[in-house]
């Protein structure tokens, strides 16, 4: 299998199913007169018109900034708190009920409360995104930290690897596969919360635009917004996977090396 062939094969896998689905959608919706299910053709036609440079600058970029800030905040808080909670049983017992309580509160009803403390600007939106994203990261970190191999723990203790070095060299790397599972989950949750947060007190943003289309009955516009969300999610996940492949190269190498090549 040479290089170009492999790239082509991958590309085929990436586009094949979406192509099939789009085709099905195209023909199934063709000629639809239902305002809420416009023909895909209409949606595609509306796309360049709706997502011109101005709208990308005015709506997409602010959204991206909020998303990335909120996500980064969640990642830092989730991993830090998760490590702490995962490492000490007493801390876990102390915090868990409160955290589980907060976790179950739906963001849309939490937003007004956050608005009380964080105002109505970008800060509020970033906090909303972070509050929603933090849970998968937190939970996965806690579980990952709890599952560190005892032999490795003993090795570290024995060689005096403690404190920050223990975190950096043992606990976090060992939990990293599971932390990445959490980060991956949060990425799409972040996008979802970006939309939700922009339903409140916003005057621009991707979510704002979608809701605006929806309320204004510009249904093809709404559909293009949903498509943009999906594309955004896809692109971010590609970037995410590249990062993960790098950071977890040892892990994937370990997993793959003993598997038979197909």
């Amino acid at each position, binding site marked *: 299998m040479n290089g170009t062939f492999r790239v082509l094969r991958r590309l085929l896998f990436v586009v094949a199913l979406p192509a099939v689905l789009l085709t099905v959608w195209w023909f199934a919706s063709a000629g639809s007169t239902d305002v809420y299910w416009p023909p895909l053709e209409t949606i595609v036609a509306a796309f360049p018109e709706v997502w011109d440079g101005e709208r990308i600058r005015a709506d997409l970029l602010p959204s991206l900034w909020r998303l990335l800030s909120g996500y980064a905040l969640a990642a830092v808080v989730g991993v830090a708190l998760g490590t702490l909670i995962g490492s000490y049983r007493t801390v876990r017992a102390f915090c868990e009920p409160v955290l589980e309580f907060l976790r179950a509160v739906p963001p849309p009803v939490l937003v007004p409360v956050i608005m009380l403390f964080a105002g109505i600007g970008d800060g509020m939106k970033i906090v909303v995104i972070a509050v929603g994203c933090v849970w998968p990261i937190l939970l996965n970190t806690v579980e990952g930290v709890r599952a560190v191999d005892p032999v490795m723990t003993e090795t570290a203790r024995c060689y005096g690897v403690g404190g920050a070095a223990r975190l950096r060299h043992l606990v976090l790397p060992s939990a990293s596969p599971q932390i990445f599972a959490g980060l991956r989950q949060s990425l799409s949750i972040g996008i979802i919360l970006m939309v939700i947060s922009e339903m409140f007190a916003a005057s621009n943003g991707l979510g704002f635009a979608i809701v605006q289309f929806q*309320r204004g009955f510009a249904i093809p516009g709404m559909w293009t917004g949903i498509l943009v969300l999906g594309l955004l999610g896809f692109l971010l996940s590609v970037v995410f996977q590249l990062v993960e492949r790098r950071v977890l190269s040892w892990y994937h190498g370990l997993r793959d090396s003993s598997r038979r090549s197909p």
Partner: protein
Amino acid sequence: GSSDDPSDKSSSSGGVTTVKVGVIPIVDVAPLYLGQEKGIFGKHGLKLEMTPAQGGAAIVPGVVSNQFQFGFSNMASLMIAQSNGVPVRAVVNGVATTGEKGKDFGGLVVKGDSGITSAKDLEGKKVAVNTLKNINDTTVRESVREAGGDPSKVKFVEIAFDQMPAALDSGEIDGAMAVEPALTTAKSQGAVEVASSYVDVSDRLTVAMYFTSAQYAQQNPEVVEKFEAATKEALAYADGHPDEVREILTSYTKIPADLLPQLTLPKWPAEVDRGSIETLRDLGEKDGLYTKTPDLDALLP
């Protein structure tokens, strides 16, 4: 689940037709609850099943897909829907302004100590409305215009009615177009009303209407007729019995008891005021609400 069989959208048994109505659980729809309780709808052979939803996002598609037979929506939304080809038909009046400045069920309020005394002072300030590009920002713009200001200099943000008092109080926003009960709450926290924007548009402004889908109107003209007749009767009854309205509010809202007597109730005339709707349409056109001019003949009954 309220209905077991999805295909059974409206059922009639023994001469009584059950229809689902998508409503927003606010003061505006009190006549329906009252009329139902007083047997007005029953008299017309209708049984209403009220489904509270948060706004047009849920009600309009529900009506269009015949999940609800009727829905409640403000005029601007209906005109926007109509101009976008959503097959909606307004059926009967919903709610109208009281026509008295300073004594309407919706008003433009600012923080007490802000030094803002008229709508003109809102130039360059942040004003909250519940939905952008809809009836409330259009009417506020008219208030600003009437006060001699430039509406394009006002910055609008979207905040739900119930969060307006807090946002106003904390200074996050400078003004808010609030309706009851948020309006009374805001005032009780020290906010002052600088304009009655609905009245500024027209002292007979029809703010909202009940509507159905074109398809349903065509297939069930008699049900629509019954609904129209019964609702008109209910509106008239509600307009004449404010105390009973306040009473019925406790059954479907949670408006605190101390707030209830202070609420300003809207007017519920039986007939729509076409002239005021045309004014609203023209204002909306100016603000770019529609892709093409709404066809009021097709929309209104």
